């Protein structure tokens, strides 16, 4: 079975400082991993995805994530936080082997990012 653990339910940073949102995954086979962002009362927007190509993945709005198989991690980072980054972030795994019937995404429980002046 596939699963995702987001280690922090809340992260608070000051504007202009780095962001680190942690994610560990469990998957029986080679997973595909995603980070989605949800701004208040909005839908989910894809930030970036890993699909077994380069292990360092660059996404929108300056975010990037590194796939580390030995650590089963896919942490999300950004060098300098902006007020507009305040949102809920979801780490998501999709296990290709399980998709005998559908592209099933398994979501983490989310990390609420707060950005302070």
């Amino acid at each position, binding site marked *: 079975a596939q699963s995702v653990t987001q280690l922090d339910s809340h992260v608070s940073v000051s504007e202009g400082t780095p962001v680190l949102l942690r994610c560990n995954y469990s998957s029986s086979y080679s997973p*595909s991993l*995603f980070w*989605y962002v*949800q701004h208040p009362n*909005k*839908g*989910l*927007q*894809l930030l970036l*995805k890993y*699909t*077994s190509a380069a292990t360092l993945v660059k996404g929108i709005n300056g975010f990037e994530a590194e796939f580390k198989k030995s650590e089963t991690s896919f942490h999300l980072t950004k060098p300098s936080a902006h007020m507009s980054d305040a949102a*809920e972030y*979801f780490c998501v795994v*999709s296990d*290709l082997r399980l*998709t005998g*019937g*559908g*592209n*099933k*995404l398994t*979501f983490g*429980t*989310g990390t609420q990012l707060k950005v302070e002046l």
Partner: protein
Amino acid sequence: DTAVSQTPKYLVTQMGNDKSIKCEQNLGHDTMYWYKQDSKKFLKIMFSYNNKELIINETVPNRFSPKSPDKAHLNLHINSLELGDSAVYFCASSPRDRGFYEQYFGPGTRLTVT
């Protein structure tokens, strides 16, 4: 142009009623999904359709019945609404039902059952 749209955005109704939520995607995707986001913001898949065929049904009560009239539309009908059905329901689509494709989400429908 909106890629994945849902109607209505808000839905307030009483226990025991029947209601529907509509979803449309204009991305030309083959596969569509319904997710439920609970009050703690946890997202869980409910259903998936590929070219109008049901391919995922995640132990959802049979009061929930998805219908896909064509591959661009996936509607969700809920009978005999219960308080626990209150949640945000998201529709999503992806190009195919297999492979490393991300899913594109709609804006959500906030359902409140009183």
